[in-house]
Structure formats: C-alpha cells, structure tokens
C-alpha cells in the first residue's frame, strides 16, 4: 500500500495569550497515512483533530517533529504538495455568494485543470453528490447537507491524492451523514488507480467503525492507531445488555455502575449496556435488579471508554425538589413561529411531566432552538401556546424564570473570568443573597468537582470541565426545571456519561428536564423523545417505542439513528411544504433525501 503521509514525533503548541503558557494541541503524535483507505482521525472536541489536519494541509508549522505529504516536508515545501491535496475545512470553506457551478470552476481554475478534464470531473461529481439540479443555486442557499456535499465536490475536483476532511458530518442530519460516507467510499473506489487516500476527522465515535484505520486522539495525544477491529477485539465478551424494568432503569444504572465488575454503563432503551472490566465475570442480573443479561456486540466507543476510563463515578445525590402540584410542568400546544414566508416551527405540541427527561431530537435547522427560545420567553410565538410551570414565560414575571435553569449550547461562560467569578456572576444574576450565594457556590464547587480549578479562567478549561461548570451555573439557584441546549455535543464519552448521571439524579429528585440534541447517543438518556424535522414533530415516544416502530426483518436491531432516518423518510411523502425548497441562510433546513438523491442508493 502506497504511503501518502508520514507524521513523526509531532508536537504543536499554540502560543499563549500575553506571553502566557502555550496551549499544547498535539504532543508525540506519529502515524502513517496510506492510500486506498479512509483513515479516521477520531476523538472528542479539543483532541487536536483540526490541528492535525491543518498540519497535514501545510497550514501550520509543527512546533516539533516532521510531517511529510507525498514526500514533501510540509514545514518547508508545502507548495509542492498543495496541488495533490484536497482539503475541506470544518467551516465549509466555500463562497456563499457564488453558485454551485461558480465555486466548482473557481477550484478548477486554482488547480489549473485542463478544459476537458474539468468538464468530465464536474459532471461526475455533480452526479455523485446529487447536486446536478442545483448548479445555479448560490452556495449560501443550500441546506447544511448539500453544502457539505459541495465542499466535498470542490475538494475532490482535481483528483487529489490525499483528501483531508475536517469533521464533514458535524451538524448534518443522519441521512445526509450516511450519504457523505457513501460518496467518499465511492470516490475512493473511483480514485483507486490514482492511489488516493482519505483522512476523515470526526467526533462521532460510531463513524470510526467505517474507517480502514483509526488514529484515536484524546487531549492532544494519540491513544492508539490501528484498524477498528483492533479496538473492538479486546472488548469481545465484555459487553452485555441487561434488561431492566423501564421505570427504574435510571436507579439501576447507578447501582450497576457501582458493581466491581462493571467498567461502564450506558442506557439504551429498556436495557442497560454494560462494559465489564477485563477478565471480570458477568454479574448476576438479579443482583443488578435486572431480568436478563445477554451478550452484545462491542462498539468502537466501548474500546475508547476502556482506554480512558478511570474509577466509576457515582453522581452525588440531589436534594429532592418539592412537588409543585400534579400534572404537566411543560405544556406546548400548536406552537408556531414564522419568519416571513418561512415556518421555523410548525404546530408543535408536547408535554413534559415532573421529573421527566424529554428530548427534542433533530438535525441543525429543524426548529429546536426556535422552540427553545419561545419556551424561555425570548421569542414571541406566531401562534399557539407554551406554558412552563403553568406560566407563559413571555408574560411571566422574573419569579417564573427563577424556577428555570438554562444551559446554552456553547455554555455561555465568560472565558476571561475564573470559575469562581463565573459562578459568582450567575448567582448575582439570579439575585441570590450574600449568604445564599456563598452557600450555593461552595456547594457547586464541591458537587461538580470544580474546587481544584476554582481560580482558573473558564476559557482555558477542557471542554468536559466547561460543561460541568455551565451545568453548575445553571443550577445555582436550585431550579426545578432545567433546559439543556445540545449539552454534550463534542465532549468525550466519559464526560458525557458523567453528565447524564447527574441529569438522571436531578430528574430522580423531581427536576423536569428538556433537552435538544442532534446527537443520537444523547437521545438514549431521555425518558421520552420527539423527533423534529423541518419544524414539525414527526413522532413522540420513548426510545424503545421509536425503535419498535421501525423494527422489521431487514432491521432486527435498529439503532435510534436507524429509527430516526426511517421515521423521517416515512414522513416525507405526506409532506407538502414548498417553502422548504428555499431555505434561507439563518434557517438552514436539511435535505429532502428523496429530492437530491436517487432512491435506492441510500441503502448502499
């Protein structure tokens, strides 16, 4: 197999602000990128994936070590390699005010492609990506999935030897995500004669299983490199599924995590997924409160967790919230929000009971955030009703908001302030008295393991710690309703587990939780889910119910992602919403799979 790139003892340090200590993005990374396969650069956010790809593209100069692409040292001779590299940066990287065809011809010019080859490649790529009907459309008016496909087409245009893709599947709906994989796989096949190879960076651990080889990064270090099977092999016989009564699954998950044989517990519908310590005997299901223990197929994530796991964490108990009457805490009826001709949220109805974790699941642009803003009283609905704790937050006094904790998507922390200052600020904003403030902050620092970093600026904390801090800040005033907007996207699986352990404990104590997510794994932790697509709720149910809806002979064990794709596709023919064909920049919608991709190819 031909060698495309060689990385040797790579270390990259970004200079610190005002001469402070630099931030080590990568340390001691050595790897080989080979032709004929997709090499996955896999790891949570801030693992160093983007830095590694930029170094491979010659956009950064390594602090130490050497990186060579096709025999050219990228520190000194990047120019010579650029003609053979196709690079798709994370932020799309195309000109939004140029059309699909104009973007493609710009890249053809930059690569000085001969006229005949240019026409041939463009036709081929437009066909593969399903963009042929949209060549005249401005790139800025494409949906998220179509933008990514155009970015891919531009990167592939000049038959690169090395294709570098920086998280192409972020924020894209699951159907488009699968399409991206199939396009790249086909192009790899097509470019086989050229000796082409692909580097695909991703934070989705499930994508690692589709790669030929995986470089697993965590906090700037390379944990392991090898084919995905190498990560799965040591997990054989260590993964089990424990059937539990649905009502008590959260309590039982906490109990299972404390069992000495258990390394990791994850919820999956009506079952708990257990990963055992190496060599540990399977525990007795009855001892864990379950009914049956069956072996399950290991996943890549299990291998990752096994490598980075420390001692099991048991979430601290929460003080029970007083029951504030019966009935539904959150009630949404026919909620609609229009922006001009565009309907961002279309007659959405759902209700959430006390102590329930309810998830709004859908890709970026489906209308989740708009729904959230209306519930928080930040945006007036065009029609319909949204009540939280019996009050309309649009009109409710500040007292109503005092019962609500809100954790925003990017955590909305002040990066320059220390952890303690951030907490003090939020405590003041919520009007806590001096004594209550001191108590709440001391409690938050202890409960969320933040005491050690209390003096550090929040901006320099690792993502998982930032997330803990954001949750601590949202809970300072002891709210009994909690809104979480994409809470764990990009954090590593251990931090995600710990986070959901805390959320589970809060729900147990009577806190009502509303979550938005485009991340299927997050959905598993919800008691009930609503699948949101193009502004509408398609279906509502427990994770187990949603899976049951799509179970069939060809899908005996559907994942939530399978359920999502099938349920959205099932809903398509009944829909008639021409406005969706003209998505605006602010409200990107996701693709109509039936529209921009020939049916049948999806299964491939």
């Amino acid at each position, binding site marked *: 197999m031909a060698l495309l790139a060689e990385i040797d003892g790579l270390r990259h340090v970004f200079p610190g602000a005002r001469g402070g200590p630099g931030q080590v993005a990568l340390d001691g990374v050595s790897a080989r990128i080979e032709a004929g396969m997709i090499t996955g650069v896999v790891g949570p956010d801030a693992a160093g994936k983007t830095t590694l790809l930029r170094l491979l593209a010659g956009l950064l100069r390594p602090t130490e070590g050497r990186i060579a692409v096709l025999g050219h040292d990228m520190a000194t001779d990047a120019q010579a390699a650029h003609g053979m590299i196709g690079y798709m940066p994370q932020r799309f990287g195309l000109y939004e*005010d*140029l059309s699909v065809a104009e973007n493609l*011809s710009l890249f053809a010019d930059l690569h000085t492609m001969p006229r005949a080859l240019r026409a041939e490649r463009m036709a081929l790529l437009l066909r593969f990506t399903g963009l042929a009907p949209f060549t005249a459309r401005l790139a800025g008016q494409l949906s998220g999935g179509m933008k990514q496909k155009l970015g891919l087409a531009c990167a592939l245009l000049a038959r690169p030897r090395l294709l570098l893709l920086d998280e192409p599947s972020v924020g894209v709906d699951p159907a488009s995500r699968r399409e991206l994989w199939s396009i790249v796989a086909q192009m790899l096949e097509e470019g086989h004669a050229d000796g082409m190879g692909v580097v695909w960076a991703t934070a989705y651990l499930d994508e690692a299983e589709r790669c030929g080889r995986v470089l697993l990064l965590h906090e700037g270090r390379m944990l392991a490199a090898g084919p995905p099977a190498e990560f799965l092999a040591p997990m054989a016989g260590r993964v089990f599924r424990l059937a539990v009564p649905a009502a008590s699954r959260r309590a039982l998950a906490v109990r299972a995590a404390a069992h000495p044989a258990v390394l990791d517990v994850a919820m999956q519908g009506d079952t708990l997924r257990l990963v055992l310590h190496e060599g540990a005997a399977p525990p007795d299901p009855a001892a864990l409160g379950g009914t049956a223990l069956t072996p399950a197929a290991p996943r890549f994530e299990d291998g990752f967790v096994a490598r980075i796991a420390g001692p099991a964490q048991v979430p601290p108990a929460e003080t029970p919230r007083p029951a504030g009457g019966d009935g539904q805490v959150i009630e949404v009826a026919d909620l609609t929000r229009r922006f001009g001709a565009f309907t961002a949220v279309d007659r959405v109805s759902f209700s959430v009971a006390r102590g329930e974790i309810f998830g709004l699941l859908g890709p970026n642009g489906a209308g989740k955030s708009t729904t959230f803003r209306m519930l928080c009283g930040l945006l007036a609905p065009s029609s319909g009703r949204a009540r939280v704790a019996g009050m309309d937050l649009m009109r409710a006094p500040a007292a109503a908001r005092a019962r609500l904790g809100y954790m925003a998507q990017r955590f909305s922390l002040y990066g320059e302030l220390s952890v303690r200052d951030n907490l003090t600020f939020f405590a003041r904003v919520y009007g806590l008295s001096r004594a209550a403030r001191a108590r709440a902050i001391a409690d938050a620092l202890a409960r969320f393991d933040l005491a050690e970093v209390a003096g550090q600026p929040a901006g320099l904390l690792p993502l998982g710690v930032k997330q803990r801090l954001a949750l601590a800040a949202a809970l300072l005033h002891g709210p009994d309703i909690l809104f979480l907007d994409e809470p764990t996207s990009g954090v590593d699986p251990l931090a995600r587990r710990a986070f959901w352990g805390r959320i589970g404990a809060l729900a147990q104590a009577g806190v009502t939780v509303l979550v938005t997510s485009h991340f299927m794994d997050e959905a598993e932790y919800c008691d009930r889910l609503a699948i949101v697509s193009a502004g509408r709720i398609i279906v509502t149910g427990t994770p187990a119910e949603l899976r049951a809806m799509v179970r069939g002979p060809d899908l005996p064990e559907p994942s939530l992602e399978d359920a999502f794709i099938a349920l959205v596709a099932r809903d398509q023919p009944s829909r008639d919403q021409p406005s969706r064909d003209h998505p605006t920049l602010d409200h990107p919608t996701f693709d109509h799979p039936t529209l921009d991709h020939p049916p049948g190819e999806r299964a491939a």
Partner: protein
Amino acid sequence: MSALRASLIRLRGLVGKEFLQILRDPSALMIAFLLPVVLLLINGFGISLDARDMRVAAVIDAPEESTRALLQALSNSPYLDVVRVNDTQEGAALMADGSVRGMLVLREDFSQHLQRPARWPAHAQLLVNATDPNTARILEGYVQGALETWLSGIAIERRLVPAGGVSVEHRYWFNPELRSADFIIPGMVAFVMSMTGTLLTALIVAREWERGTMESMLASPARMGELIAAKLGSYFVLGMAAMASGVLIAILLFGVPFRGSVLVLTLASALFLVFALSLGLFISTLARNQFVAAQVSFLVTMMPALMLSGMVYDIASMPGWLQAITFAVPARYLVSILQTLFLAGTVWPLLLPNLGALALAAAVALGATLAITRRRLD
C-alpha cells in the same frame, strides 16, 4: 503548462470570483460608492468655514444724519446683517443669547470728532463674541472693511487724499471668491478615499478569514502573491471608480473648479489606492475579524486623515513635532495634490515631491503586506 500560464489561469479564477462577490454582495458596493457620496454630501454641505449673514447689533447715539451713510455701508456688506438696538444693555443681552455676533457702538460725540479728525480721532467701539476666535476675527475684518469703504467714500467726497498713506489693493488668487468649499471638498475627497480604500480590503479579507474560505484558498495551489494580486486588482478597479465618482461630485455638485491634469489626478489616485488597499490587507491579515478590522481601519485612517492631513487644519500652523508626524500620514500628500490640481493647476514643483511620497507609501504598505502574509494560519 508553463508556470506563467498556470498562474494566469489561477488569477483569472480569483479575479472572476472577486467580481462576482462584489456584484452580489451589496456591502462592498456600499462601502465604495454609498459611503463616499454620503460623507461628501454631509461634509460638503455641513462643513463651511465661510461666515455669511452675521448679525451685528448697532447702538447709535450719534445724530442720525451723520451715521446714515455708515449704516448703509455696513448693511451693503453681504456678510453683515445690522440690527438697530436702543442701548448697550439691549445689545449685550442679544450678544449673550447668541442672536447677534457682535455689537457696534457709536457714541454721541462720534460725528463731532469725525468733523475734526485732526484734533480727536472718532471712536467707534466693536464688541465681538469671540467664542470662536476664527469667526470673531472674520467679523472684525468685515466691519473694519465696511468702515474703510465708508471712510474712503467720505475722503473722495471731501476731495481729501490721505497724506502719504498706503493703499492696499487686494487680489485673491486660486480661490478668488474665497469659497471654503473649494478648499475643503478636494481634501474631503482625499479623506473619503483614505477611509473607504482601507475599509474595502480590511473588511472583505477579514470576512474570508471569518467564513473559513481563506483556509481553503491557502490550502489550494494558489500562490500568496496571486491571492494578494487578485484582491488588490479587483478592489483597485472598484476604488478608482469610487474616486472618479467623488471627483465628479466635487466638480458637478459643489462647483469646485478643476484646473490640473486628469492624468496626474489618475496617477496620484492610483498610488494612493495601492497604499490604502494594501493597508487594508495588512490590517485584516493581522485582525482576521471584521469587527476588529473595521475598528482599526477607522482608527488608523480616519483620525489622521481628518486631523493631520491639512484638509481642515493648516499643517503650517501646527507645532513643529506635530508637523513632523504629519509626514507619516500619506493622506496629507493626496490632500496637497488634490488641492493643487483643483485650485491651482498642474504645478510640478508642488506635485512631484507629493507624488514621490505617495509612491513610497504605496511601496512600503505593499511590501509590509507581502511580508506578513505567509501561507500559514499561525
């Protein structure tokens, strides 16, 4: 394929992209055309150093018939508007509330003394609101002038020739009508260009950084020189068009005469634009963020161009150290060139050093930009 040919193909792609973006994104066209027009209109009509129709209170205790001609002379001046008041108290009140700018007082004995100038000179008192010293001086000059006109009228009437006196003949060159607009507008064109030129490239390149498109370009086979050449070339065309529209507004709308060579004007504009556009590239390469780039652009172009270019404030009357600083403000050379071309004509001894300075500024800015833009993100 030859290296040159490949380079030309890449340039064609990049320049084509720039023009498509300029045409589709209104913000570049707004910076290039709307901003200069608005600035020129606001400042052209708003900033006027001419003092016209200044109201002056007149307290006249002297007999009517001897002062009638004097009042007539004052009222005839296009710059003065005489208001009769009864006493100095009333006049002082009007001065205090700002409704008159000055007060002329002629005492009872004014005409007596006037009859016998050899024994007692006639005294007239002029009180001036000197809040704005410039206007105060202008008012003083106008009243003095009116008095002189009147006196020489009397002298002719009495067939007296001032013994051994000096008679000064005024002739105003370059701006015979003493219209301050003729002086300000050419400077304003320079000011507007120094702002928009830098802002154009500063914002547009910072936007490429923000949207991540610069990253794609840097990872492509395009050379850094080609990227810069495409940006400079495209926005140069836009900037020259904006400059032309500024000059046309000055001539057609404000009626400023143009006495110099269009060729020299084009050359000076071109040199200055290369400087301003390169400065914009320099700023956005360092800032990589539209907000910071806009702030820095305003700070480094607007302030010096307004204060230190000689557009409004005369450089010659600044303290020496400040005069030295103005040499580092390229806008001053363009202001000087434009004022020369508009008001005086093609005066080579005046134009050449300024053109040379502009060429140097353009070379330095372009060189600095080339030096800091490497094909790296770090």
